[in-house]
């Protein structure tokens, strides 16, 4: 069962990666307006007007 020696740390590492991704998303303000983000994705006015408002991006 020696394979466990590196499989388990790998599994933990992947989980940790997910945790860090969430913490990054939280820190960059992506959870401050969850309803708005769902609607902004449908808006396409940044394509033709060229005034790009960078929908979804952090501030």
């Amino acid at each position, binding site marked *: 069962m020696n394979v466990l020696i590196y499989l388990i740390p790998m599994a933990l590492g992947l989980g940790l990666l997910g945790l860090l991704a969430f913490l990054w998303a939280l820190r960059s303000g992506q959870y401050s307006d969850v309803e*708005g983000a769902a*609607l902004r994705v449908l808006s396409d006015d940044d394509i033709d007007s060229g005034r790009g408002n960078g929908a979804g991006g952090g*501030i």
Partner: protein
Amino acid sequence: MSETLDLSLYAKPAADGTLGMDVAVEGISCGACIARIEGAVKRLPGVSEARLNFTNRRLHVAWDDGLVKPSQILSAIEAVGYHGYPFVPLRAEQEEAAEARRLLRCLAVAGFAAMNIMLLSVAVWSGNASDITPETRDFFHWASALIALPAAAYAGQPFFVSAFRALRARTLNMNVPISLGVILALGLSVVETINHAADAYYDSALMLLFFLLVGRTLEHAMRRKTRTVAGNLAALKGETARRFEGDELVSVPVAALKPGERVLLRAGERVPADGVVLSGRSEIDESIITGETARRAVKAGATVYAGAMNYAGTLTLKTTAAGGTALIDEIERLLDKAASAKSHALRLADRAARIYAPMVHATAALTAAGWLIAGSSVHDAVVTAITVLIITCPCALALAIPAVQVVASGTLFRAGIILNAGDAIERLAEADTVIFDKTGTLTLPDPRVTNTGEIDPDLLQMAARLALSSRHPLAIALSREATLRMPFNAATEEPGQGVRAKIAGVEARLGSAEFCGLADTPAPAADASSIYFVYGTQSAVIAISQKLRSDAAATVLALTQLGFEVLILSGDRNAAVRPVARALGVARWMGELKPAEKIACVESLKADGRRVLMIGDGLNDAPALAAAHVSLSPIAAADLTQAQADAVFLGERLAPIVDAIVIARRARRLMSENLALAAIYNTIAVPVAILGVVTPLIAALAMSGSSILVTLNALRARRSGARP
């Protein structure tokens, strides 16, 4: 508007040299609104950023100083069909936002740890049932410990800190048994891991933290949501005042007024701040302050209070410091007294914790003693005692009440009730007596036309449309009847007399009796004000006075059917209260009450063992609201009064009150059910634990099972208030 509005109070400089402002926006209904509002604001010169937060309906704007004025930003929002007003974010709101992020971080850490430990634990459990080697098991246990200990130290902080505070204050709350359970479970697991034992409880400890943090996070999010809505409503009132700067008049937000400034107040406007009249004569309506509907004549030297409506003439005021005036001081003194006398009703959750914690700890101690007497080793006795503590760790109990509160406050929110206090639901469910204030609570906050039935509908519509051209309070009241909100062209206002216009070539006049040539027509009712209208040969006398809310009678009836005794306590004259009480079928009423007398009434009812629900809006009601068991305020109430109320209801109808009581009573029943469920869980789990046959698998199943059961039961509070 023609005058300049100076909103520099709200513009805050940012680090990059731009100015920033937060605007509460009203009327946002769909995703397209985001682009429309942001686009309109971004088109202004100098605006570098406009971002609308759809969740809390707030727009953040940043611009370069000098290129655009804050008032132009508001005009741009108005121009695309929305209404916005800036606000200064409250400190409390910022702190709550930080707390919400902290809880989410804790939740994420606990979730990550619980999932990964469960992964390892399932392997150990199945291995224990088959052929796992002790070395592999130790490896899995140590890996679990490596995740669990730091994760619990981080994610458990909200509980540990609160438990520590409670212990230092020599009391018990639900966090004490939670913290103790988590710490003991982890400690026992480490000891057992060192001893190469088969069982460890890392998974239970982390799963417990995860479930509890889910509850905390939801509870916090709900509180924040209601606070944001309340903040927006307050901002959108957008109260401005006209301040003299030198000889010039500048419109400023009321929040920018300081004591000692001169303010101009026209007819139809509310007094922006407490002050003394410097010049001018007028009549003011102080019903929001005293409940008295008769108007008071004021002239130079008179004191006026914020919120009073100026009816007749233009006044110049000098603002004075808030407080320092006899009435406000009296109310603040009464408020302090009421707050200190208020019996701190112990919340259901704390009451449960105080019974539960000592019982659990005594059971654990007895278990250890019992096993020692029965001849088992010290190690086995202590392990069994700790498993008792782990399995009784009040996961279900700690979720039982918050889960219901979260769901019920969401239901209340949809019914138009915004909670100020978290435990208001419990207290609302216990109330058995309702006291209504009259003015502004049973009646609409603004006067209305009361004799619509006696006037030809076409004529009334014409008068109402003509009234749109006037700023006189009576005309504003009349204009609310206009279904078509279009003023007539070329309507001219004769100050102090009325408005006139040519409608289809015929002269129409609206105003005083003399102005309309109707001086010898009798006034319709003694307690109403009248406004006269002539159109060619047709004429009408329109009576305007305080009008009952449309469903006041139905609400009083519904409350009576729910078993409440209904009372009316008013600061208004008896002659004005009597017809209202008669119309509503309320037998117990009193008028001409001072704030102190209202409190005395509430106190005497409390002394009779009544749980009083007080509903009021005026400044004079604030002390009685604070003294009552639970209190409600309409959204149009005075600010100080709203701050005292446990909950605020929106809209022009009283129906939310009945909904609130029905929802609160159902929530209270669900809370008791949940506590009973948690108790049943314990009566089954504890004997099993005492016998020493609990394995980590049983502990994990029992804990998650009971938590999910309690949460599902709480979801039943979602049904809205129509039926009990």
